[in-house]
Every structure is written in C-alpha cells, then in structure tokens.
C-alpha cells in the first residue's frame, strides 16, 4: 500500500496545453514520474509551493495560464527556484528537466 507515488507534482490553473506538454516531456526524458492536478488557485507562487510540499520527492512545478515555475520543499513560498513567463518550448523542456534533476540531485541546466 503506497499512498504517495514518488513523483513530481505539477499543479496547474488553466495551463497552456503546449507549455504543459513540453514541461512533461522534459521530466519524462529524465526518467522521473509526475502527476498533474488542476487547482482552484491562480497564484503561481502558491501552486509551486504547494506542489513541492505535497510531492514525496519534495519537488513541484506550477503552471498558471502561461506562467511557469519550479519549487522545492523547504524553500519559502514566493522564492521559486526558477520562474519563466511565456516560455519557449526549449525553456519548458529545461524547466521540466530541472525539476527532474532536483530529484536526481544533478546540477541544473541553464535556461
């Protein structure tokens, strides 16, 4: 009986579909699992913070419309590790890859 699957949480609020797809591809290529959940919350900081704190892996991604961010457990709300508005598809991949790299404890890629 596993309650929390060890995965990155992605909390979304009316997320741009292409952006979300590319972020997921970034995580998938790195071989880490993710779960997407649509939330009532519109604020990016809250989405990221909650996602990180509710992920067993301590890593969360937030997508509000076309704003994106990545956050880790233990870092205060509002201090997302990475934040990109209207990201290109390359930037989405990197954001996803960095979420996975946080889990794998590998250095982050540069946007």
């Amino acid at each position, binding site marked *: 009986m596993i309650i929390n699957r060890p995965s990155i949480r992605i909390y979304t609020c009316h997320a741009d579909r292409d952006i979300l797809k590319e972020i997921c591809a970034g995580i*998938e290529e790195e071989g880490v699992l993710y779960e997407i959940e649509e939330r009532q919350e519109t604020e990016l900081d809250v989405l990221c913070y909650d996602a990180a704190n509710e992920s067993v892996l301590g890593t969360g991604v937030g997508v509000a419309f076309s704003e994106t961010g990545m956050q*880790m457990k*233990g870092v205060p709300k509002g201090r997302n590790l990475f934040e990109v508005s209207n990201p290109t598809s390359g930037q989405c991949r990197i954001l996803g890859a960095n979420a996975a790299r*946080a889990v794998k*404890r590998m250095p982050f890629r540069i946007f």
Partner: protein
Amino acid sequence: MKLIAGVDIGNSTTEVCIGEIGGDGKMRFLSSSSVMTTGMKGTVANTAGVIHALDAAMGKINRPVSEISLIRINEAAPVIGDTAMETITETIITESSMIGHNPSTPAGAGQAAGTIIYIGHLPEGKPGIPYIVTASSLSAYDEVADVINRYAKKLDIAGLILQADEAVLVENRLEHKIPIVDEVKSINSIPEWKMAAIEVALPGQSVRMLSNPYGIATLLKLDADETKAATPIAKSLIGKRSAVVIRTPHGNVKENVLPAGELYVKSDQVYPVNIDSGADRIMEVLGQAGEVIDISGQPDTNIGNMLINIKNGMGNLMGEESGEIRITDILAVDTLAPVQISGSLAGESCMEKAVGVAAMVKTKHLPMEKIADELKRRLHIYVKVAGVEAVMAALGALTTPGTRLPLAMLDLGGGSTDAAVIDSDGRVKTTHKAGAGELVSMIIQTELGLSSRHTAEQIKKYPLAKVESLFHMRLENGAMHFFENAIEPKYFGNVVLLHPEEMVIIDEDIPLEKIAAVRKDAKRKVFVRNALRALTEIAPGHNLRNIPNVVLVGGSAEDFEVPEMLMEELANYKIVCGRGNIRASEGPRNAVATGLVLSYTGGQQ
C-alpha cells in the same frame, strides 16, 4: 636594544622577521609578515615588496620602520624553476568513425549492429537486413516513435541514433525496445548505408562490447587488421554510458606526427634517454649522470622544442642569451593528457600517457647587492646580503620544537624543491631540484582537462565537497554539512571547493572522487620523488637513514596533505618528518627570514 630585520625574497612571497637584541645579548622575536613578491626574484623591482613587508611587520608592533638598525637579506641561489608539459603520445588515427559519449539519458539497453539508414529513407529499406536508424532533431519524438513502430513490422530495426535529447521519450512510445543513443549533435556527418554498431549500457554501468576490440570485431564482423585499427576506438570508449562505432574505411590516413624525442643529459659524458621510456627511466638516467652541466633535447621533437622554449623564456626574462642559460636539473613525471582522435565524429578525445617536465635553470649570479643598495638608498638603514637562502632556511627550521642537529629542511616552493642539511658541526650542504607546487598545478590542470590554471591551483589548495541538496553538502571525507538557509540553485548538484571565503563551483563535470584522486596523485608524484632525491643527494653518505629530522617549510608545506604524505614515506627510513613550526608559532613560513635574524646573533657570539 637593537632591532634586526630578516628579509626573504622568494619567487612568490617576500617574508620579514623582526628580532630585538636585549641588553643581555639575547634575541627576542617581535613580529613577522608575508606579502607577494614584486617583480622577478633578484631584480630591483623587489624593493617595493620588501618595504611593504617591513611596514606590515613593524605596523603589527606599532613601531616605525626607521627604528630598525639592520636589514639582512637573503643571498638567492642563481637557479630558477620553470615548468612545462608535453604529451609524448602521437595523435591517434583510426580506420573507423565513432561516437562515444555520455548523454545523461540514453534509452534501452544492449547492443546492436546494422546498416545505417536515415529515418526518411526507411521506405527504401529491405526486409531481413538489420538497420540502425538515424533521426535529426527536426523529427519530433512522437513522430519518430510512430515511424519506427510502423516500419518495425516489415523491417529489422536494431537501433536508433537521435540528435535531440529525446531517447527516453521515444523509447517510452516504442512497441519493441531497442538501444537508443541520443544527443548526437553532428548527426549529419553520420554516413548512410555504412555498417554501425551501437551499445547502451544499463544505468550505472558502462559499455562492455564496444570497449573491447573483439566485441567490435564480433558486432561488425571485422578481420584481424580491421580489429587492430579499431583498438584505439575501443580504448576511448572505456567507461562510456553509450557508444556508436561506424565502419568507414578511410584508406591511408596519414598525419605528420611530431615524435616525443630524446633527452640529452650532459655531465662527464652525454647520456641520452628517450622520453617514450617514461619518467622512471628518465630519472634513473639523470641519477646515473651525476653532476649535471646541461640538459637539452633532440631538435624538432616535442621535448627538444619544450626545452628550447624554457631556455628562451628564461633568457628573455633575465636579459641573457639563451646560449648562456643552462638546465641543471629536471623532474619528469608520468601523467595523462587528452589526445584528439582523428576519425571521431563529435571531437572525442582520449587520455594518453604523457610525460610532464619541470626544469631548473642556472642563471648568472643574481644581483642581490643592487637590491640592498636600493633599499639602503630608500630607507636609510644599513642593509646586508647576509646568507645563502637554503642555509638560512635550515637555521630557521631548527627553531621548530622537537628538532636537533643533524637536521634537514625541505623548502617546498613553487618552482623548485630546495633542501639543506646541517650536521652537528654546523656544516651545511644544499641542493635545488626542479619541480614543486607549479608542476602539481600543471598536472592537475592537464589530467582533469581544465581550461584554467587558476582552477587547478585552487583544486590543489582546498578540500572538495558535493552539494547534494539545497540544504546540505557532503564533504570530501564523507561528513555532512548543513546550510542555515537554502543555498543558491547554481550550487545544487555541483562539486565545489571549500575556499574559506566562498564556495567555488567546478564547472567541468568531473566526479569528486576523480578530482581528489588526481590531486593526491599529482602531489605524491612531484613531492615524494623530489624529497627523496634531494635528501639522498645531501644526506651523509648519500644514505637517507643518516638524516634523523626533516622539517618542511615553504608555501607548499602549507598544503593540507603534502606534509602527511612525506611523513608516511620518510617514516620508512626512520626519519621524523613534519610541517615545520618555525619559532613554535609561525607554522612552515618565515624560515629564511628567521634564519637571517638568528645568524646575526650567531655571528656576534
């Protein structure tokens, strides 16, 4: 009550020691200081640094420099260490093309061989022939997976090479799993219709078939000659996560390769030795030669060019003709250097054996009197060139607690390792050996393939750690260190140096353990060898067991691991060896300056 200043002008550091002679004629030490040397050692440009150091030392005891009655400066040995490094191996030429790399996320596992086909040409493929498919980053991962799934029903698709970082994405969408290598930037230089073998290792392992010449032979059905030509490829693929080898007979690739060359050691006669025979053999010949007059290299070879460069460089600096400059000692060390592989598709290199060389250059007598005159002129204090550097260092070393005569000191500097023995009657023997801290930094830089010497110098000096989360790092010795607040993301996952002021990120992607191993090995190769040959030369009867104490001084004696390495090695000869503690307080620094002050009372009494 008289104030005496001892001043030691070194290649890197200028040090001062201030002593006071009381009414009873006894010496009391009051202060000391250390600054960067200004200008090249032995030139009048040094005066600025000396004055700065005197200011600093007197400042500590709140007294003006003018109260000093006598300044004693060192008689510098007319030898200067210089360091250069040359690989001795030839460029590697291969008959096949290869890609051997560590994409962080290849996919699938296992090996495959087949004919290369571009994904767009799959309609031309014939059943029954194994294919390795290549796809550029213009094809999206879901399209690639779709096409492969479709064609795999008719054709034998054995492996896939991708330009984009999408191996896992494609693999997750394939019906039949095959090995996939991705992040191959130069995908367009892969020749279609040739035979290729590809291999992806299981996570945490490295390729086994393609790093074995007979494995390549098995997959690509090579004959014995072709297998021989594939050996450098196999060698360069050792330890790689994934690899591609393509069979592309080039015909006769020829390159102009500069041979490593011979070294000529001139003493009573000329002793030749080939660089190819390695550092141990070179040092053995040097040892047999006895007192060396000059060392040169075979013209138009790697070593020949290197020694000429050293002589010219020194000549320019000293304003002497390079013909007048003689090399009286060298230290050769076996090392590894990256060598380009001709035939590689993505500029891969592999590490080959190389020999690094530090040389000791004999120059004309250094004009220390000129420096003394200039100091006198500017400070109006009596200045005396008072004693040979190594002898003064030995005198200073003797103030370390727990020592007695006969005593040897080893001055581990930047360019050279100097040694002196004082026997019980006060007689002194000295020697200067090529190679010290700078050669260590050079080896670290080369073996780790670092772009900056500065990084190598820092790796030499500071312990390593790996930042494992935003909240902690693991130190080199395994201990954990927690941060108060989350650290900046740029540090996350990186190997860093624990510089006292700030953590320094090592940009190159090299595992902590590798860096530590190269660092320790470089220190051992330079300092252990030099300590043994310097001490053997000056030991009574050339027998190390006749030396009871060795005191380590100089900049490289500050090193956090070199003194312990030497202690362990010299313990085999029942020698007490350790980092000096000059005047029970200065650590390994200030030996020469202290010796200069001490020798004044010695002279008086």
